[in-house]
């Protein structure tokens, strides 16, 4: 399965998800429903980073 999936492409999408979430977070100061749901989304994005992005970053550093 790891051969069939392009980790770099997945990582790009994870970064995009994070950018979008952080953008929303910046607008959430007076909007608890937005702020707290984005907090949870960012926690899930962190799990994607430790599952996938950390490996991509390591590969990139070694190139």
């Amino acid at each position, binding site marked *: *399965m790891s051969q069939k999936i392009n980790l770099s492409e997945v990582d790009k999408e994870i970064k995009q998800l994070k950018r979008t979430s952080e953008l929303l977070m910046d607008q959430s100061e007076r909007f608890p429903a937005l702020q707290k749901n984005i907090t949870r989304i960012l*926690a899930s994005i962190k799990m994607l980073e430790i599952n996938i992005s*950390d*490996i991509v970053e*390591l590969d990139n550093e070694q190139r």
Partner: protein
Amino acid sequence: MSNQSIYWNPVLETLPYEKIRKLQLKKFQRIFSWAYEHSKFHRTLYDNDGIKPKDIQSFSDIKQIPTVEKSMMRDIQGKEPFPYGDALCVPLNEVTAYRQTSGTTGQPVYQPDTWQDWEWWAECWAQLLWAQGYRPKDRVFIPFGYNVFVAFWAGHYGAEKIGCEVVPGGVLDTRARILKIQELNPTAMMGTPTYMLGMADTAINKMKLNPADLSIEIITCAGEPGASIPSTKKRIEDAWGAKVYDHAGATEIGAWSFECTEQPGSMHVNDAFFLVEIVDVETGEAIETPGVRGKMIITALDRQAQPCIRFDSKDIIEWDTKICTCGRTSKLIKGGVVGRTDDITKVKGVLFSPSSVENVVRGIEGLGNDYELKVEKINDRDKITLQVEFVQNFSEEMDKIKSKLSDQLRLKTNLNYEIEFCQYGELPRYPVKAKRFKDLRK
């Protein structure tokens, strides 16, 4: 046959080990910097030894970093901010979960987690449950008290993350839990080995039910070493007609180790999320050689609110020479957690582990699950007394059993015991975790 991956993370779990090591070093540098920058406790601890984040360039550098003991965490928690103290790395308003250790070895330690830490707990559990065969089709029954102890809370969330249907068997007594299993036909269950045996005992002796006729196919055990002790595992598997898998974790650490469906007699370390080191109990020297026991020093590489960096867990483990046939490339610890430095002691000059006695007792047909073990000093000599029970209504071949027990104990532990045989039901029963060994010399 399902085309689902056998791995929760097919990348990380099959990574060449050399690459895992590089990942561990990179992640260690990251968590060390995080703790240094955000926690007064950690910064002071490392400054006192003249260690800065930039100094960590290799595993040899990591070995120079001071370890953290549970007693230090207790001292920290007398400080601000209440109740966690200055090891806390995030503002208090970002803490979303409180847990605490059981306090069996002293004052409980408080454990703060952010939502991200809690996601991480569930992630670790999702990986281990997947490795033990849990799938979205499973209905998982959790006969656990859902209290201040982390225990199976994270198992609950990990199973949900996989997509299992979770049945929380919280405020029910043992009979009601068994009836709930009968009613709902769950396929998997989690509990301590002591409680899994106790539940089976209640079903058989008080409810006249055979637990093996119920629907449970998978049992995940944690909290005690039992599921890695072959005779205890066999008893639980036989009683429930289910596969039993071990898992090791701790409140301050996380879910760091697990047995997979191959049941290799060893447990996988979740190497991508944890750095496990083994050191000599007396000298503190690193042990890299398989087959040599020492105590575990562990780092949780992604835990942020209250980091766990080079934590002296007091767990006794050893590296296995094997690589698991499941295809995971992580290192294995042979026989799981074989004991704790608090329990492993010298008796009559011989290194003595209570779990080896459990393996002998539960390996003998006719003896019950319960036993009590004590060591005392009489006239300057160590004396070990073992109390065992016969199973209910057992009356045959008692002399043979007595002789077999004595021989096996001598063979497996190199020690002689004063053995007392009791009737079924005479010895204490423990609801969740058993404390069967008492060293009265201390």
